[in-house]
């Protein structure tokens, strides 16, 4: 490992005190003179057409200032999701908004509105929509064909051929790829297994529901919002409102979680912005928890089928995978496509065919949710691999090791290559920490009504993008200011990745400040804080801009003090002659000289290749110090993936179906560790999120009425304190990725699938291989399986 000063050290995040003391201002903590509140009239049914709305009585209610209808807001053809609609496609979709002096008045006004809705046919389960004569979620059709929505129905014979209630019908897919010789793969297999797959949709439910407050000044929109990104969310808001980027000032210093649901500008920002424009007053919209269940996005559930071929040594010779994605009503979700790639990478099958169809449903809109596609496929396939391993008689660790990818692996739709891969190391180290060889002997051991089970899951996920910009300023106060356009989601990566710039400049971290969370503070073009991009993307961008700043300092010193730039080094807050750290210029002096010289030293001349947003920001900062801006042009010639291997032991009570998690051990390959403490929190948090998805988190939508019945957190059941052990073990392989200057890769996504998959495998192990095969594995399902071997209802039911 390279010798770093800051990289690899544990740091507390710099916003810690503000958060703990409650001084941190989240979107809903802001107030502006004359501010109004808004409440929404939402659709009570899953698909309908508004015949008429009469809001005259609402407008007469004292305190009501304005009503905003779908007729006044931007509308485009489906799949565009309008902020207000006259054809709601899911229960809870906003139809109209009321602005009033307070929320109670706005809510009372909603109750005075007469809305006449024509109910339309709706689809909740994608299979129902694919049946001949089945309902379409939209008037345009029911499936995505590339980017278009078209109608697709499977013939009745397809459904008839699946003659058991649990058997997945396999009709036509409209997106597929294949590599190797699948037929030969199965022909060469010693053991073939074939199963129906399913996993459920779940809401993101960050702790902070989405809030936005908007006002307009001199044609510019000021937006306080809870978003995962600053640079990217601002662009999303501008696009949705038809504004120039510079006309949107986005303030989002703190975000109480998003998990992918707060990436780009959304309907919840557009509504207050438009109402603020209409009323000429600031408008705040707070989304309640119940509304969050509808508006707050969800993970696409899947129904599917897989056939796997194995040799006697556990090697997977063939994988045939078919996934029907419950896409929700709007934009095309990438989950199932990603599932194909993740499956290909996790098991590197010698041959593989992937087929998918993305079916629209009248259920809450979907968005990427932490490990999109990865969590679903890992949680569906890992238990199946376990069942196969039992049949072949191969140890379940061994079957993963023998199929695990390595640095030479090519995989997936595009035969992608990897920048690095230490999946096997993660599995082996995890097995050692967990003591797999001993614990796996306890499989199925019964003590009274309690039975032990152990499980493993390997979860690969995309770990970073590249090509973004960095922007730093050394000011005459002698400090290094590192500007970040990513969000501050609570993962610490907003701060931790800034250290790459400080590392290059050998700067004292106490002398550095990270500038973030407010576009009026001049931020660079940054990745959204999603998809585990930030760690990789912005260590690169900040490394590059650190080098740019270093180059400027060396050049400046040579001009000021003589010699050539290469005679100088940067450390201890100075640019100095190599080997003479007390000489040269302090950062404060260098900043002053840079301003005096102007041109490329103080931001008046900028590199050609930086993004316009970075250019605007750097130009605004010009003359304030030594200004360096740079685009990350470092090589990125393959795909960056991280891997988490999680091991779980459970004790299942076969008389009640309840279970206790005894131990959770995870090991990650996420490159060089940036901040050990933050990393452990992030990885264990993801594992817990996955455990929650596997054991209790759920949707419940009534099949007849299409209405959500689990709108409160209490009913949605994310994991609670006692559902996981007090201590979780985590370690990182800590081997550098060669295509990142500090060796790092992202870690946000992969732990979730690892936690979910390992738990499902462990529970199934305790049940001797019998599986509920329906997530979440709640006590009712486990007990039904123990008692009768079946759930008593079809596994192909969704939103149960």
């Amino acid at each position, binding site marked *: 490992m390279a010798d770093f000063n800051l990289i690899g050290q544990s740091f507390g995040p710099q916003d810690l005190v503000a958060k703990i003391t409650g001084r941190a201002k989240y979107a809903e903590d802001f107030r502006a003179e004359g501010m109004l509140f808004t409440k929404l009239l939402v659709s009570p049914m899953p698909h309908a057409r508004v015949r008429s709305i009469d809001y005259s009585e609402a407008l007469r209610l004292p305190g009501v200032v304005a009503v905003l209808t779908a007729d006044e807001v931007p509308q485009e053809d489906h799949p565009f999701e309008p902020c207000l609609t006259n054809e709601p496609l899911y229960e809870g979709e906003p139809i109209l908004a009321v602005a009033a002096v307070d929320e109670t008045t706005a809510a009372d006004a909603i109750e005075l*509105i007469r809305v006449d809705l024509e109910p339309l046919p709706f689809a909740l389960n994608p299979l129902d929509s694919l049946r001949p004569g089945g309902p379409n979620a939209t008037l345009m059709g029911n499936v995505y064909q590339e980017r278009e929505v078209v109608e697709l129905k499977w013939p009745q014979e397809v459904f008839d051929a699946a003659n058991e209630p649990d058997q997945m019908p396999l009709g036509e897919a409209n997106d597929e790829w294949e590599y190797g010789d699948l037929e030969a793969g199965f022909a060469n297999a010693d053991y073939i297994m074939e199963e129906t797959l399913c996993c459920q949709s779940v809401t993101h439910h960050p702790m902070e529901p989405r809030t936005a407050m908007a006002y307009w000044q001199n044609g510019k929109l000021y937006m306080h919002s809870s978003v995962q990104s600053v640079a990217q969310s601002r662009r999303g808001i501008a696009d949705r409102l038809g504004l120039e980027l510079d006309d949107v000032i986005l303030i989002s210093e703190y975000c109480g979680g998003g998990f992918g649901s707060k990436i780009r500008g959304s309907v919840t920002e557009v509504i207050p912005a438009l109402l603020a424009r209409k009323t000429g007053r600031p408008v705040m919209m707070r989304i309640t928890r119940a509304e969050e269940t509808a508006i707050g996005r969800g993970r696409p559930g899947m129904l599917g089928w897989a056939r796997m071929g194995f040799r006697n040594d556990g090697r997977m010779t063939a994988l045939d995978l078919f996934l029907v994605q419950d896409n929700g009503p709007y934009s095309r979700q990438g989950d199932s496509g990603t599932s194909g790639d993740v499956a290909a990478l996790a098991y590197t099958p010698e041959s593989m065919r992937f087929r998918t169809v993305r079916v629209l449903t009248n259920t809450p809109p979907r968005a990427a949710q932490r490990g999109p596609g990865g969590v679903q496929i890992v949680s569906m396939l890992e238990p199946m691999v376990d069942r196969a391993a039992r049949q072949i008689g191969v140890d379940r660790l061994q079957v993963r090791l023998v199929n695990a990818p390595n640095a030479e692996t090519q995989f997936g739709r595009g035969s992608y290559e990897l920048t690095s891969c230490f999946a096997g190391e993660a599995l082996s180290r995890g097995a050692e920490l967990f003591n797999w060889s001993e614990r796996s002997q306890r499989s199925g051991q019964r003590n009274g009504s309690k039975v032990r089970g152990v499980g493993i899951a390997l979860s690969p996920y995309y770990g970073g993008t590249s090509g973004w910009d960095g922007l730093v300023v050394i000011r005459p106060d002698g400090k290094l200011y590192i500007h970040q356009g990513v969000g501050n989601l609570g993962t610490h990566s907003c701060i931790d990745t800034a250290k790459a710039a400080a590392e290059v400049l050998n700067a004292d971290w106490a002398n550095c400040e990270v500038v973030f969370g407010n576009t009026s503070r001049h931020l660079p073009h940054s990745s959204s804080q999603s998809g585990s991009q930030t760690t990789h993307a912005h260590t690169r961008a900040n490394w590059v801009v650190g080098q740019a700043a270093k180059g400027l300092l060396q050049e400046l010193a040579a001009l000021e003090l003589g010699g050539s730039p290469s005679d100088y080094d940067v450390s201890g807050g100075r640019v100095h002659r190599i080997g003479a750290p007390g000489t040269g210029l302090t950062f404060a002096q260098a900043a002053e000289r840079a301003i005096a010289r102007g041109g490329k030293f103080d931001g008046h001349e900028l590199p050609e290749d930086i993004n316009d947003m970075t250019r605007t920001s750097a130009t605004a900062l010009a003359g304030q110090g030594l200004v360096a801006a740079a685009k990350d042009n470092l090589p990125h010639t393959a795909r960056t993936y991280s891997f988490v291997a999680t091991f779980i032991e459970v004790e299942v009570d076969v008389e*009640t179906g309840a279970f206790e998690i005894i131990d959770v051990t995870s090991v990650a390959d996420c490159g060089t560790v940036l901040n050990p403490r933050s990393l452990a929190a992030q990885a264990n948090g993801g594992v817990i999120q996955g455990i929650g998805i596997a054991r209790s988190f759920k949707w419940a939508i009534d099949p007849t009425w299409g209405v959500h019945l689990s709108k409160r957190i209490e009913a949605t059941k994310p994991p609670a304190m006692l559902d996981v052990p007090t201590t979780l073990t985590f370690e990182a392989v800590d081997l550098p990725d060669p295509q990142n200057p500090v060796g790092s890769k992202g870690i946000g996504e992969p732990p979730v699938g690892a936690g979910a998959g390992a738990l499902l495998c462990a529970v199934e192990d305790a049940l001797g291989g019998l599986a509920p095969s329906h997530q979440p594995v709640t006590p009712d399902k486990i007990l039904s399986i123990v008692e009768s071997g079946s759930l008593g209802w079809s596994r192909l039911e969704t939103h149960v």
Partner: protein
Amino acid sequence: MAVIHDMMPAYELFQPTDVEGAIALLNEHGDGARVLAGGMDTWDWLKDRAKRITALIDLAGIEELREIRATPDGVDIGALVPLTQVERHSQIVQNYSVLADSARHVATPQIRNQGTLGGNVSQDTRCSYYRSGWPCYRAGGNVCYANTPTSLNREHAILGADRCVAVSPSDTAPALIALDAKMVVQNRRGEREIDAANYFIGPGTDIERMTVLKNGDVLTAIRIPNTWSNAQFYFEKVADRKSWDFPLVNVASALRVENGVIQDSRIVVGAVAAKPLRLFRVEEAIAGRPVNEETAAAAGEIAVRGAEPLRLNGYKVPLMRNLVKRAIRGQEA
């Protein structure tokens, strides 16, 4: 008119300092009045605008309702005593541990600090159709949305259903019935004591109420006699999560055992019917029998006789059977 949820409407708040004052306010405001204890059930109803009121009568200021008093014959627990205190009170822990145990299984520490014993036993059912404000039998309508060929009724009743299939969600109620507790109810006509087992009512008695309480009534105390003091107790709750969850099924029992033979017992199961069910047939069947696997297994079988599961709650039959078995045998086989 359009409907909006999850937003508290305005109403008048009254904070009486004695029970008589509370009763007077309840009578004055009639059907528009609602009693507030810890609010853990009430706030949901009000925020969702599924139940509308004009006056909220907050009992929190009535000191006598917040006390636990030892009596010559046991212990009186004020209806407003927080569950945390029930869980930790030394006399309850020592003599009536099944109650302390059941209280400890309610929700979360925060909710137990705020939620009260009176509120926990008087709370409304969790049927999500009913709580969503749908016009079902229990809400005064003439349909049950939870009992159709497609309904989501995993949490619903397997016994005692009558049009409505909702269940009692309380964790402490089965324990109180097992202890032969009395519920002290006051109204303008005076005070009366009701056996805990009779405090709860099924849809056959009144489909719109879970307890005998009518408007104008205030539950003031829960009186625990020493009948079962230091008996052999058992409480178990099975839920989707280890905290912050309602029971799928729970069980509370009290046994008097001499020389390994059951002399007398109380076996009560919650969340299988609209009211917690005291299992008289089981109690009769195990009287005079030894505490062993055979007795326990037989008890479990008797317990579930007549159970009629719905579409998604068939698991409740074995779960109730096994919990009754464990209530007699203990958890270890």
